């Protein structure tokens, strides 16, 4: 066990935890004022629900003894055998509890990301049940496949900090949910204008800050690789913020603050699978592409007309997919991508992309249908008119 690594990863876990309230602000500012609390709640309460589920059974499904490359066994259920030393820890330099809580924070934010797709029209009880099932039936297996010794791990798929596990999975789920739940009342006829963009920018800043824990911490040690991932994360994000506003400046006429914030998040998403595998300059190039591609994604959504309210598909789905494929091209640290002549890696990345999208979309479809038919998911028109804050929580964000 290494005490320095332990200190670093505990701090990183705290940084990743801070991303979820950051996401709550990011999403909360983007909705209309009558839905601000319900939207914030759909992120914040994941700190409660997912943390409990993770400790009871989620962690062991992800990191328990491998069963057929598909899922972890129940050996760590109720955190049995997860202690203060490194016995049984997937990272030998860390106490098993440190590794578990670091991974817990990833699990918390992933279902919260999906909530942007069905913002302003999802009932709270259905949301809780959907998120719980999604965590256990989609996130935990994905986590096992990629990091827990599952089949994608065995195949050699590169996913440093969660391009597939966190972003493609939530993006695929978001697309499925947006299609199945249908549009918000008034979509296409009313203006859905963000009610507080300063809140959104602050949220994006917190996400950027927390993401250093997400990506640098995924080195699982306070070493040079962590430094490399930190720098790659920062440069890709900076580049994507710039390329998004340039793209919209050219295409739409003006650079917007929401564009700068969205570009930064797109860069953070895209560099996530690559963070520990690419050089600083490769990260910068990757980020430049992320801003333009994800801006294209949201323009395409506006043309296709489905109501992914807060652009989870365009930013997390598309950004994660692009990042996973770009990792197969640009990897030079600890792995070899197409640039070093290893075309096979790009093929492996492609397989991981297809598998992730197919699995997450299909499983989300089933979970959504089951929860919709039992607990119910979509708020009726009257509740949407009133606002989800009053309809679901009997409170309002602002008094005047």
């Amino acid at each position, binding site marked *: 066990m290494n005490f320095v690594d332990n200190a670093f990863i505990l701090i990183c876990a705290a940084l990743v935890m801070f991303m979820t309230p950051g996401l709550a602000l990011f999403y909360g500012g983007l909705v209309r004022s009558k839905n601000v609390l319900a939207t914030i709640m759909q992120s914040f309460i994941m700190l409660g629900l997912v943390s409990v589920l993770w400790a009871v059974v989620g962690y062991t499904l992800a990191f328990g003894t491998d069963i057929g490359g598909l899922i972890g066994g129940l050996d760590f259920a109720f955190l049995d055998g997860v202690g203060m030393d490194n016995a049984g820890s997937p990272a030998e330099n860390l106490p098993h509890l440190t590794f578990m809580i670091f991974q817990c924070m990833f699990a918390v934010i992933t279902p919260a990301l999906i909530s942007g797709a069905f913002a302003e029209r999802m009932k709270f009880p259905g949301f809780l049940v959907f998120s719980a099932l999604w965590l256990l039936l989609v996130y935990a297996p994905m986590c096992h496949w990629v990091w827990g010794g599952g089949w994608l791990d065995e195949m050699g798929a590169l996913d440093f900090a969660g391009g597939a596990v966190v972003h493609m999975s939530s993006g695929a789920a978001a697309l499925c949910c947006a299609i199945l739940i249908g549009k918000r009342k008034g979509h296409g006829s009313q*203006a859905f*204008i*963000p009610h507080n963009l300063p809140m959104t920018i602050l949220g994006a800043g917190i996400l950027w800050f927390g993401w250093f824990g997400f990506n640098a911490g995924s080195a699982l040690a306070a070493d040079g690789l962590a430094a490399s991932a930190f720098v790659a994360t920062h440069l890709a994000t900076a580049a994507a913020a710039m390329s998004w506003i340039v793209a919209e400046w050219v*295409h739409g*006429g*003006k650079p*917007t603050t929401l564009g700068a914030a*969205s570009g930064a998040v797109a860069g953070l998403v895209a560099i996530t699978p690559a963070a520990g595998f690419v050089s600083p300059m490769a990260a910068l190039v990757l980020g430049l592409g992320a801003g333009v591609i994800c*801006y294209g994604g949201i323009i395409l959504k*506006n043309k296709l007309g489905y109501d992914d309210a807060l652009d989870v598909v365009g930013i997390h789905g598309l950004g994660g997919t692009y990042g996973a494929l770009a990792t197969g091209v640009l990897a030079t640290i600890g792995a070899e991508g197409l640039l070093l002549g290893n075309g096979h890696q790009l093929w492996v990345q492609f397989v991981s992309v297809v598998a992730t999208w197919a699995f997450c979309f299909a499983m989300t479809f089933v979970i959504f249908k089951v929860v919709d038919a039992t607990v119910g998911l979509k708020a009726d028109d009257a509740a949407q008119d009133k606002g989800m804050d009053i309809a679901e929580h009997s409170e309002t964000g602002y008094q005047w």
Partner: protein
Amino acid sequence: MKKIEIITRTFKLDEVKTALAGIGVKGMTVGEVKGFGRQGGHKEVYRGAEYQVDFVPKIKIDVVVEDDFAAQVVEAARKAAHTGQVGDGKIFVSPVDEVVRIRTGETGEDAV
């Protein structure tokens, strides 16, 4: 007595207030309002989605004065709020039947 409603640009509030105070207006009520006239609204763009926003933020200043003072107040407000561009706003003048000062119970012009 007359009530004078001045609806104009938000940044003109201080100039109008100073002008009215300068000719002896003793009180006024100010509110933030939204609306549109010939100026129309404006376009806003969020992640590439364009929205037409019809209601433009304005301020509304209400003043109640004696009948023979009204014309002077209107002219002072008009000059202070004037830029010459579309969107300067409107001034409405209407009769007031009664005014009551809540503290003392005074009525009519004594209460203005």
